[in-house]
């Protein structure tokens, strides 16, 4: 088994998924399958924790693109946390992720999510 997928308990509109091992031609379908039921209209951010991911190929990149495309119509985002050097290099070579969607730690991603949440709430209050 070269890819381990851990689905963490969902937060408010956010869902963290940790992937470990190799995300490639042999494993991307497992990730697509695991993510499919999570990518709902209510989800505003999918946080992929890549700390334990050792390797990614173009097949893995396409899985990330696919998740992003599913969430985009209702304003949802895919955030990536702590990519290791090989992963970062591959992401950079195909310009796969805007810089503001990559975080060096889950704490940093959480802080960003909190900020987004607060902005949404404040915007709601302003409207009243």
């Amino acid at each position, binding site marked *: 088994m070269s890819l381990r997928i851990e689905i963490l308990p969902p937060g408010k509109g956010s869902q963290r998924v940790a992937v470990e091992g190799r995300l490639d*031609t*042999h494993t991307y379908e497992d990730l697509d399958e695991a993510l499919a039921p999570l990518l709902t209209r209510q989800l505003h951010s999918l946080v992929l924790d890549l700390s334990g991911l050792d390797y990614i*190929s*173009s*097949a893995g990149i*396409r899985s990330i*693109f696919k998740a992003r495309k599913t969430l*985009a119509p209702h304003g949802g985002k895919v955030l990536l946390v702590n990519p290791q050097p*090989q992963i970062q290099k591959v992401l950079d070579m*195909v310009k796969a992720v805007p810089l503001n969607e990559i975080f060096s730690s889950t704490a940093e991603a959480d802080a960003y999510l909190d900020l987004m949440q607060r902005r949404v709430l404040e915007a709601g209050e302003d409207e009243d």
Partner: protein
Amino acid sequence: MQMRLFIPREHARVDDLNASLEAVLANNGVSPAIQGDVRLIVEELASNAIEHGDLARVEAEEHELCVDIAIREHLLTLEFRESGAPFNPLEQPPPDLDADILDRPTGGLGLHLVRQVSEQASYQRVGNYNVVRLTLRIPTEETGP
């Protein structure tokens, strides 16, 4: 160090091939970073050949993927050979990396990665085979205290 590995044209066998290559490279002191580059090159070229390669009209037993790998001093040379119809993977149009990230076509990324991680790459049609030769520079490691 020099060796040759053959596998049938099947996705599942590509993983075996990469496992063997990784073991050989590790035994020869090649860093995990370069091991990752080699895995990427082999996976992308093999997947492309398996998914898109029209088989040339040659004997069935010749439909194999073959990788030759050699390390000399600070250069790693990799030769990838397959019996598909003539196809130069190095001459495919680059993907549009600056298009809107949501509208971007996702084809062509793999071969783009192969070109990016290789220091040099060349293609030759040899008989019934597509032969791609690539070199990677192995960073010099600090020796001893």
